[in-house]
């Protein structure tokens, strides 16, 4: 193996395990030592580079405002956060959750109580947005070990999504625009067979691709969402369509009219290729929005 190809192999390998280079990891470690933490630098870092999985939970906690920027306040703040377990205790007191309640449902009930939306009875059927919550919570639960941290990450991740609610209706339009730039013929095709309005936008944008992408890809997309860009979601959607262009066109003949068909398409796709799609989407997003797309 030549030195070059060895290096290439190394960087490909590193990319696979979650960091492109040791240098990046080092510079992130430096950033995390800052006191107070420079949140804008961390934001820029997670927009520009993939987060090493060992630091993901920590960086998210900072970006989501769960951990304070000053190391000095960490202990006290985390003690405050822990007090939220009172909510869990209260839910037990009114027989809303028990020892056998699944953890994700516990998080949902805690969140409902906190936002004043606890239903009258736990046996009431769940609303669609509750189901989205559960799916997101499940994905985050896989990522964050500590249960208090986990609830806080879920709670804070879901809240920015609600903050994006104003931006959400504009995402389909942005999707059109970028698809037009990348492949105007495909867009034209979708338009002429009036499939465009039937694409699973909610499934993509409202749910942040939960249940659609494998966990590893999901985390890389959410890194960007957490650091302030929901526009990344548009580029993932564009890349999915580009990747399945042929299949989508064939599907069209049988009527591309449901989210289900695209979902099935994605479900039957090997995880590797979805990972590759996400990598392409991130590159495309960098190309169109630069790396400082906080407000986008």
């Amino acid at each position, binding site marked *: 193996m030549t030195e070059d190809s060895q290096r290439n192999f190394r960087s490909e390998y590193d990319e696979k395990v979650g960091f492109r280079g040791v240098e990046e990891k080092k510079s992130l470690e430096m950033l995390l030592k800052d006191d107070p933490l420079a949140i804008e630098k961390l934001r820029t870092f997670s927009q520009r580079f993939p987060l090493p999985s060992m630091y993901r939970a920590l960086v998210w906690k900072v970006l989501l405002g769960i951990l304070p920027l000053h190391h000095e306040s960490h202990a006290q703040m985390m003690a405050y956060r822990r007090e939220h377990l009172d909510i869990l205790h209260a839910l037990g007191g009114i027989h809303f959750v028990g020892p056998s309640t699944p953890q994700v449902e516990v998080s949902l009930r805690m969140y409902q109580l906190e936002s004043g939306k*606890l239903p009258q009875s736990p046996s009431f059927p769940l609303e669609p947005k509750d189901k989205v919550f559960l799916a997101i919570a499940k994905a985050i639960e896989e990522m964050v070990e500590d249960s208090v941290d986990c609830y806080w990450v879920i709670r804070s991740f879901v809240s920015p999504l609600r903050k994006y609610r104003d931006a959400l209706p504009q995402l389909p339009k942005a999707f059109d625009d970028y698809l037009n730039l990348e492949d105007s013929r495909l867009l034209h095709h979708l338009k002429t067979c009036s499939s465009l309005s039937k694409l699973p936008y909610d499934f993509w944008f409202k749910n942040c691709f939960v249940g659609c992408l494998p966990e590893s890809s999901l985390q890389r997309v959410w890194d960007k969402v957490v650091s302030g860009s929901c526009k990344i979601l548009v580029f993932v959607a564009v890349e999915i369509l580009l990747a399945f262009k042929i299949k989508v066109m064939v599907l069209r003949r049988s009527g591309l009219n449901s989210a289900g068909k695209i979902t099935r398409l994605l479900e039957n796709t090997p995880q590797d290729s979805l990972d590759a799609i996400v990598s392409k989407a991130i590159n495309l997003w960098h190309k169109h929005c630069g790396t400082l797309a906080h407000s986008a």
Partner: protein
Amino acid sequence: YLEDVKLQAREQLKAAESRYEAQKRITQVFESEILDLYGRLEKDDLLKKLEEEKTEAAE
């Protein structure tokens, strides 16, 4: 440096406030639970009374 101190204080205050808010929500939920339980108890009492009257009438 001053900005720093202010920022730190704001963060702490926010966290402290949020656990107060949580506690307030708990109170609200407990309140309606108590009302509900009283309602159920009264219904029970009422039913019991009705039964008693029925039994008395039957005797």
